[in-house]
């Protein structure tokens, strides 16, 4: 495990941004008083905690070793997410059958590459067979 101070700072930054967003949003909702709590009082309290802890994380957590770096394999994860978005976008347009097959095909193909077992032509052949014969 290695130290990634930038990643830790980034994590703290994102957490802080969420906290500040919560603060602004709940202030806009109105805090009310303790005797008559408004809709924003509870989110405000939570946001204060998040913001404070984000600052603490930024100050103290820089030497943590609990982050994982992004590697070339992370590109595959991005592709995987993209395929899921395409799936969700196609679903209401053309039903679930074709997008499902496409999704399974894409995942098997790009997973197979690194596992080194399936080759994509055979996956394609199998996919064609299953769509044509069924």
């Amino acid at each position, binding site marked *: 495990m290695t130290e990634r101070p930038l*990643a*830790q700072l980034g*994590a703290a930054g994102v*957490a802080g941004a*969420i*906290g500040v967003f*919560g603060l602004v*949003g709940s202030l806009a*909702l*109105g805090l009310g*008083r*303790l*005797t008559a*709590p*408004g*809709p*924003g*009082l*509870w*989110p405000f309290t*939570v*946001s204060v*905690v*998040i913001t404070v*802890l*984000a600052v*603490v*994380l930024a100050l*103290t*957590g820089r030497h*943590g070793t*609990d*982050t*994982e770096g*992004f*590697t070339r*394999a*992370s590109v*595959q*994860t991005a592709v*995987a*997410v993209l395929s*899921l*978005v395409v*799936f*969700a976008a196609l*679903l*209401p347009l053309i039903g*679930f059958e074709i997008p*499902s097959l496409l*999704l*399974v095909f894409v*995942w*098997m193909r790009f*997973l*197979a590459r*690194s*596992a080194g*077992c*399936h080759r994509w032509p055979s996956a394609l052949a199998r996919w064609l067979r299953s769509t044509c014969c069924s």
Partner: protein
Amino acid sequence: MDFFNPVIDGFGVVLQPTNLLYCLIGVVIGMLIGVLPGLGPAATIAILLPVTYGVEPVSAIILLAGIFYGAQYGGTITSVLLKLPGEASSVVTVFDGYALAKQGKAGTALGIAAIGSFIGGTVSIIGLTLLAPVVADVALDFGPPEYAALSLFGVLLVATVGNGGRTKSVIAAGVGLLLATVGRDTFTGASRFTFDTLNLADGIDFVPIAMGLFGLGEILHNLEERHRTVPAPAKVTNVWPSRADLRQSSGAIGRGSVIGFVLGVLPGGGATLSSLVAYAVEKRRAKHPERFGQGAIEGVAAPETANNAAATSSFIPLLTLGIPANATMALMFGALLIQGIPPGPQLVSEHPDLFWGVVNSMYIGNILLLIMSIPMVGLFVKILRVRPAILAPITVLITLLGVYTVNNQVFDIFLVIVFGVLGYLMKKFGFEPGPLVLAFVLGSVLETAIRQSLLIFGGNPAGFFTRPISGTVLAVLIVVLALPAIRLLARRPKTASSKDEELV
């Protein structure tokens, strides 16, 4: 005997053929995913949540509970044979289990683990049977301040005791609490953080969050980690442990049961922590602690017993107080809500068939697991040969189509993808998704309870401390939170003095 009538009726519920079948399906699925490294019980339960919609409440919870404690059995198999813990709660089993397997005693290790798991589970069920109604009875008198204190206790303890950095876990819990506020405010009717979209007006559903963070997040994270090759497992022969082995591990099994039961009830305890503690206790008690790690049978018996006992006893806070003790129990909480049954102290009296049906199904499930695990070890090992390239697309498809079937909303699929990416990024940056999901579940309970209490107290927050039960809970919480700081302060002068001694 009035007390035992509902218990016996509960057996009547479990022994209905459908429920028996669901129990069997549950423990088999649990055992399978326990064997497969990567997909844990939380992920599996999250993915299967939509499936439980069309099922009777009792059967649904029996199924999910079976997955949970079945996974504790399955995780052992890969720990012992392949040095790959299938579950976090089986990590310590690796040390001695794998050492035993290398000595050709894999069968003995698995046999002892199965017997220990069975005994631990059974002890815990008996404890649950006796203790839960009592706790529920007491809890019926709880008001909003007590619930506020207990929920806060649950959220913060899970965040601080869990693995991963404390600060990060509490931040994750905070984000969970914030997500729970999305939607219409129940007190004033104001819309909060909805960005004027109709899809968010009723708040975010629990199912997409759980499926995204636990299910899809884990799948995406595993995509990058599948490059290791699975070694050929050791041959399993002679699963029945000898009488000497049994005698040697009987003490460890007994202590493991108690440790697991106690730690399972506490918030943030659960199976993983109790297996670690049980192992440490055995090592400290042993006459020859150097045997541990070299293939001590107690090193397998104690943690395996403890994790099963804890898996069972962690149902107590959920079924009696409505406070989930860990992330998996948060999913059970969600599953009960989906069925229209709010978990809480009234569960025992209002839905005795569900309560006792689920509790008693654990007896049956444990017997099924014992029967299956010893002779069928070889079969389960074969499952490891299934390639992730086949498993991942199928699970991802089940997840996405599953969440769509809940409300027939494509928006929910997008939510799952968003939370899946969030879960993946959280893991990358060292945040645990568990506290977030738990806090999300408890968020509305907590907020409602706090606001009701403020109204009761006339706006004076000191009221939380003056009521005996909520005051005690909060005091314990403060002590637990302050403990690491105190320990740090106490240790500092000591390390300084030991350095001085060395110098002398």
